[in-house]
């Protein structure tokens, strides 16, 4: 079992609960131990980064400092947290003046010399896809997903995941290994609208619909993502309006870890699907997966 200092991110607590559960389950099944960073705090996400430079560095740094004490590399499952933690790490290692200032405020050494990795990257490091194929008990045959990585996983270039910044393929390869018929499309890293979800819902609605239209044009029947904010926006923001329940695009949105668990035959997977705001159960039932 490879152990990582796990930074869950605030959304695990509520709306992305399924993500957190499925991440743990999938990681465990794949031999990755996620040890939660004790007393972790919010990384600041967009709001920190957008309003105050010191906040944007110090809030993530606190968690990196605690992780350093654990002596492990850090695993994240949220693309925004991933972006913020890596960004802060880089700045602190490159700017000594900044690092000293943050150290003073935190009372801990914020210079993290380990690696901060997204669970997707970690899986790719430790799991051989051919072996994974062997372990799949419920191949995702009738699922035709498009992989949606979101904007924060791929950028800025050189800082983030080693994959191609415009055309990442890790999630696609993973889903293929799980038996899905991955549909190619070119909107993989196009922003969903991010933190404007509440404040400029109209903007998010426009971008979300654009993504759904592209997914449908690509002949997909679901979207798979690796960022809880993206999933929330995709599920919630196809339209504005006080009482809108029905949505024009009925494509369910999954976290990639949910599908890993499903394909590996983990029972608990069933409990996550009813929680989705766009019900994936009809699709999964039709595919014989639940």
């Amino acid at each position, binding site marked *: 079992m490879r152990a990582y200092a796990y930074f869950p991110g605030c959304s695990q607590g509520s709306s992305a609960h399924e993500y957190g559960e499925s991440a743990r389950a999938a990681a465990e099944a794949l031999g990755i131990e996620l040890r939660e960073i004790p007393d972790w705090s919010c990384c600041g996400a967009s709001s920190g980064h957008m309003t105050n430079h010191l906040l944007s560095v110090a809030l993530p740094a606190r968690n990196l400092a605690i992780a350093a004490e654990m002596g492990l590399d850090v695993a994240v499952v949220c693309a925004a947290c991933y972006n913020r933690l890596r960004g802060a790490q880089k700045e602190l290692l490159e700017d000594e003046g900044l690092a000293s200032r943050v150290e003073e405020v935190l009372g801990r050494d914020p210079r993290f010399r380990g690696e901060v990795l997204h669970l997707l990257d970690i899986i790719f490091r430790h799991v051989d896809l051919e072996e994974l194929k062997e372990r799949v008990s419920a191949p995702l045959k009738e699922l035709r997903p498009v992989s949606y990585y979101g904007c924060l996983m791929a950028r800025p270039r050189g800082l983030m995941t080693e994959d*191609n910044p*415009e055309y990442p393929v890790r999630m696609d390869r993973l889903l293929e290994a799980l038996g899905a018929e991955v*549909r*190619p499309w*070119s*909107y993989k890293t196009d922003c969903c609208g991010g933190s404007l979800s509440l404040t400029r819902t109209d903007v998010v609605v426009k971008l979300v619909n654009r993504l759904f239209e*592209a997914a449908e*044009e*690509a*002949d997909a029947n679901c979207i798979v993502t690796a960022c809880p904010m993206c999933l929330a926006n995709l599920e919630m923001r196809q339209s504005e309006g006080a009482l809108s329940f029905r949505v024009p695009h009925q494509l369910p949105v999954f976290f990639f870890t949910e599908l890993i668990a499903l394909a590996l035959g983990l029972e608990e997977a069933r409990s996550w699907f009813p929680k989705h705001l766009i019900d994936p159960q009809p699709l999964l039932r039709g595919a014989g997966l639940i």
Partner: protein
Amino acid sequence: MSAKKARKKDQQLPESGSPVGAALVVGGGVGGIQASLDLVSLGYRVYLVDSGPSIGGVMGMLDKTFPTNECSMCILSPKMVEVASNDNIEVITLADVEDIAGEVGDFTVTVRVRPRYVDVEKCTGCGDCTAKCPVKVPNPYDAGLGITRNIRVPFPQAVPGAAFIDPTTCRYFTKGKCQNCVKVCQAKAIDFEQKEEIRKLRVGAVIMAPGFSPFDPRLKPEYGYGVFPNVITSLEFERILGANGPTSGHVIRPSDGKEVRKLAFVQCVGSRDCLVDRGYCSSVCCMYATKQSLIAKEHLATVEPTIFYIDLRAYGKDFERYYQNAASRHGVRYVRGLVSGIREKQKTRNLLLRYLDDAGCMQEEEFDMVVLSIGLEPPRGLADGLGLGLNEHGFVESDKFRIFQTTREGVMVCGAAQEPRDIPDTVTMASAAAARASQIMHAARGTLLTRTEYPPERDVRGEEPRVGVIVCRCGSNIGGFVDVPQVVEYARTLPGVVWAEERIYACSQDAQEWIRQKVKEHRLNRLVVASCTPRTHQPLFQETLRTAGLNKYLYEMANIREHCSWVHMQEPDKATRKARYLVRMAVEKAGLLEPLQEGESEVIPRSLVLGGGVAGMNAALSLARSGFPVYLVEKEEELGGLARNIRVSQKGEDVQAYLDQLVSEVQREELISVFLGHRVVDIGGYVGKFRTLVRDREGRESLLEHGAIIVATGGRQHLPEGAYLYGKDDRVITQWDLEERLEAEVAVAPRSVVMIQCVGSRDDRHPWCSKVCCTEAVKNALAVKKRWPQAQVFVLYRDIRTYGFREDLYRQAREEGVTFIRFADGDTPTVNDLGVKLQVAVKDASLGGETVYLDADLLVLSVGVEPNLDNAELAPMLKVPLNADGFFLEAHMKLRPVDFSTDGVFLCGLAHAPKSIEESVAQAVAAAARAETILSKDRIITEGVVAQVNEAACSGCRICVSLCPFEAITFDESKGVAQVNTSLCKGCGTCTAACTAGANRIQGFRFDQIVSQIVAASKAWSD
């Protein structure tokens, strides 16, 4: 003995101390080809090395060339054939130069020659081997599109025209079995035992012409190249447009072969881009995208091309007109603003591109195909171990004023390997490099040339025609469709034919020997070969005839391949019938052929150079250093020309110091006679024998006799009387004035300097781009910042045309804080005099036309270059034309940029078109090289196929005089008849066709000869 065998003999060693009279040219693209032809004309043996299986380079892959839209291969292949048929140029393919040892004048170059596995002497390029090869490979000649076989002739016009095997994919080499090719080769040319060879070549000078590598757009992943099938590179698109390409010229797209309607071009892919470490501009992409748009529309009228660009760099001669016409008359849409990322629709594989329209609104448009205008990178593996300096971008470093000179004495460079550039500039540089090489080697001129000894010509006058006919099978190319034995039988029945036989490959080496034998055996006095095209093979058979002791004009060719078997493959019977009448036509004419004599004309080994500026002085010095006296005529009282107004060059060099040095070198040079204050009164004579009368201000005249003329009369500065308050306010100055002020003492430093571009260029009265002004402005802006760091500098522009490495200067200017503001074409800035300061109002196009008010202590106008007012007077004296803008018009815009159609007259500098100092230097030295090719000969051999006037029949109407494109016909007033100057006549036939009296005829293409062919054809058809 075959001249070809003489090539590989050991070279004779020159006496110690004198240079080796041979040169090495590295790279067989258009630059290398031009350099080779110039060098051999100048009297030096040439080794032309190319790393691929054929010469031709990238130009050989292009469909058409800008700005004339001519077929690229059509203008290139005659030069390739010239190289092939010249015994003094040894083409060494599949070879790499590993080391250059020694020093200027005497180098020993190590060349590693990879095995071709095919004997070039035996292979006839018939293609039988390719048809049977089982290995399919993507075709590199088609930029990877299209599939070909491993063993192949690289492309139809390849030189050498022989097949080659790529051992990395050959089944025999990789798996140990096959050799299908050997089984089918009737010429027994394939040899799997060939080994790599190391050759040591001893040469006096080296010219590098390795060209460029195309940028790999996978480094810009946002464009989806390699992922989206309908996103292709410009090179791939060029192949799609090519008639000999993978789609035969149909504008269809890769994913589904559908015709393309909406076509997008994305500029600057891998150029002007610091993100991928390619900060320079690739110089040619704006023009080639325009060209490809126009050609695509020519092929398919429904194509709608859109070009997305940052600055449209149409800076060369006629480029601006080409661009404006494309936009206004030919339906090419230009959208300013680069596309950021491309999205794809999965069902149709169409592409979605977003851009800002004129109103500033974001649009998303769907396109069928996207062409990425990729940049030019330095060639791979350049200069390892060759002792050459490279610049920061990896291109060959050169001297600041002589761009053809590398950091190593004796090694020159031309073309894109030194800086991305187009074909005319490459050809110019190649000639300049050859001139420099000649300066090094001229003491050994002619020493290593092999001259074929010909037997005396047998006098066949009075003899009955004894015609020999050879019908070639060309492997299966002719023999597979035309019934060759039947044609031979038929030939034997024709009047005059005493011998007819077939041959499997009439062009092979052993066949030439066989022909010579048969000529002797049957006492033939005329020869007909029925085979392929005279374009490639006429010189070969004419040469054979000459070595057999007959006049070479006693030869006639029938093309029964391109004109027969290849186009009538489905109808062999009709093809055979056609072959019979083609042969009959040839035989008929052969019977009427007469031996033709080539004339000789003397050459006065001296040149006239008109104009004593940078160009004129460099041309004069170049010729003088090769040993030729020069008359340098300058109308002003001092030398220097317009460069006297420029302080610092674009590369930061001291121009005045350079000029002073040039002037003193000219004055010290014994072979140059300078005529200051003199103007040309009259020019008479023709190539080899010109007579020019010059006169100074006091009326003193001199009559100069010389063999060649170089026109270097320069241009002049546009003075915008009244515009922008110029002439009314002394705060409004030109860039030259600014250069002066930068040197002078000023009472108060200017706080704000505003520059306005395109004053007197790109407008109705001057519809051309003056090429240098953007770079000059940037250069001067940097100088202002250096002298007065507190000053604000603004440059107001339409397009910033800092092409090539000048882009680095533009970036530097921005980094130093110079502010660049773009105004839309037509939205010119206005100037207001507010007393204490000037106020310039400019509509900033980036802000949707919002007006920005700039205070100016100095308003600097970047004025354009205009043609010299004397051009209109000089042109008729020189018998050369001017173009629509008033600059001199060269013989051919792409491949003969320093020649005129009129032989013996050459062109360089601003007289040709606006250009920078180093470009003038290169063109001047190139003109000197071209002049030297004439001056270095003792006599000029003139064509045998020339026009002749029957004076008795000439009515004196003078139509022919005005029509002749080569100014070869004059009117003799005393006799009242036209006279053809055979030294200038090229045998084009225009005069003959126009002559209403039938008094003019072309030797070898007489009226009776042609009529006999027509009659013979009709007879044969009914036979």
